[in-house]
């Protein structure tokens, strides 16, 4: 480019340099990706390898024995299932309705924007804060004590904002023409929503619920402060009494096991870690499958 004071040889050399730095850049990106994937596979793989030898039917179906040093973890699994089930009982109603309100009724006024900001803040609030809140309100003020019910309420509170946001997003991803079409046929807004929009948003809503359930099962801090019980060999009785008692569960068991220090043998810890991880991963895998099915089905 004579006009710019550069000759072709110079330019060529520059091009070559840029080409090389671009290749180097790609190599660096690849290295980053390999490390990240390595970390994921390394961690999940290690826990699998270390945990599998501990797992057998007895481990999953029996209570701990000999002061945690033997036996199984059934009461903790049972407790985690109970906690999740209760959370899924309370969360969807409020979360999904709230999400519908956000997506279709709230509009973009100042107040709804503030509510939205609050909800996204709540969705990003650390779980220990929910634990504190649950402790202050449910355990102490409402005098529920450290109990299954307090745990349900706390975990539900933690899950609702997440479900609201995913519901809102799922509904918004349905093209507005669906709603407009239905309303133009003379349906009321609510009827139109229910017939034309919600069915298409269901997979997205379910994904949000499943993710919230996975989080409820895996998070230790809220349970720590509201519902946790370290040691349990009790038989499960399904009555009101159960609701007012603390409940053993997997994350709390691991957290307390660490606090007590060295009581639980390493093998059992790995087995418990694996059980908890698979518990959550399988739930989330469900979400991933729902999501990919939805992607395959969507044609708009």
């Amino acid at each position, binding site marked *: 480019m004579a006009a710019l004071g550069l000759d072709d040889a110079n330019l060529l050399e520059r*091009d070559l340099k*840029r080409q090389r730095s671009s290749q180097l850049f790609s190599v660096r990106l690849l290295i980053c990706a390999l490390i990240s994937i390595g970390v994921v596979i390394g961690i999940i793989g290690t826990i699998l390898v270390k945990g599998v030898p501990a797992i057998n039917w007895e481990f999953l179906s029996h209570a701990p024995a000999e002061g945690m040093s033997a036996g199984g973890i059934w009461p903790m699994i049972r407790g985690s299932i109970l906690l999740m089930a209760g959370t899924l009982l309370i969360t969807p109603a409020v979360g999904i309705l709230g999400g519908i309100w956000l997506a279709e009724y709230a509009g973009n006024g100042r107040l709804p924007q503030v509510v939205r900001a609050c909800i996204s803040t709540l969705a990003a609030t650390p779980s220990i804060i929910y634990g504190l809140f649950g402790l202050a309100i449910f355990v102490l003020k409402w005098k529920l004590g450290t109990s299954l019910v307090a745990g349900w309420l706390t975990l539900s509170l933690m899950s609702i904002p997440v479900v609201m946001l995913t519901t809102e997003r799922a509904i918004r991803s349905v093209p507005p023409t669906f709603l407009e079409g239905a309303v133009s046929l003379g349906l009321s807004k609510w009827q139109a929503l229910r017939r034309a929009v919600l069915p298409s948003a269901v997979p997205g809503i379910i994904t949000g619920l499943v993710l919230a359930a996975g989080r409820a099962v895996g998070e230790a801090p809220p349970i720590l402060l509201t519902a946790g019980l370290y040691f349990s060999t009790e038989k499960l009785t399904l009555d009101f009494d159960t609701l007012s008692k603390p409940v053993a569960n997997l994350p709390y068991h691991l957290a307390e096991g660490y606090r007590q220090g060295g009581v639980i043998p390493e093998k059992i810890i790995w087995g418990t870690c694996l059980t908890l991880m698979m518990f959550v991963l399988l739930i989330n895998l469900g979400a991933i499958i729902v999501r990919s099915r939805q992607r395959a089905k969507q044609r708009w």
Partner: protein
Amino acid sequence: MVGTLVRPALSASNVDLFYGNNQVLKSVNFEAPEREVTALIGPSGCGKSSFLRCFNRMNDRISGARVSGNITVAGQNPYDPKIDLMALRRDVGMLFQKPNPFPMTIFENVALAPRLHYGLKGSQLEGLVESCLKKAALWDEVKDDMRRKNGLELSGGQQQRLCLARMLAVQPKVILMDEPCSALDPISSEKIEDLILELGQETTILIVTHNLQQAHRVSKHCAFFMLGVLIERGETEKMFSDPQNPLTADYITGRFG
């Protein structure tokens, strides 16, 4: 078919283009004269845009694209494995259907590529940016706040002219335009057409359009594509008044397309 040009700026012989198993171009033979505006016309989906993208290898970016045949542009074969792709794209600029300014200031939009290619800086770079914005008839509108204003804040027509300036800053010998006015209002289109006529004095321009009036107004030469086949090629005036091929005639008189 007209005879071979003495010094074609662009040429293609027996060019086939596939996207996967889908053949988009069928043995196209084409030439375009230097320092003239050549228009590619034809119904949508006829392969004219794909053909245009062979000259700067933008087809590479579509996975599964394969090209065979011989192409020459600005003295190089873009599909030569040893080619310096950066040099090719310096020599062959492109304007897209939708204006696509970078989300940065107007000045940066224009300055970015020459800085990378030629290592320009300081007053030399500023001078180049100014002259390119002037060539794109944008200077008067943006000179005051080009360092503050984001390229995306401009109107559609201004954005397209910014893209033109951005491309001119790399000093292309050949300019490819892929329906540059189809996303613009008539007044903005007119401004772009004026610029095409002006630039056509000194640069080779290949423009894809399905606006026949536009092709008529801006181009000296013209090529008509249909279903991946080059049907007819010649001087625009002649082709519009006396098309050789009945298909061309039908298209130009508006019987389909």
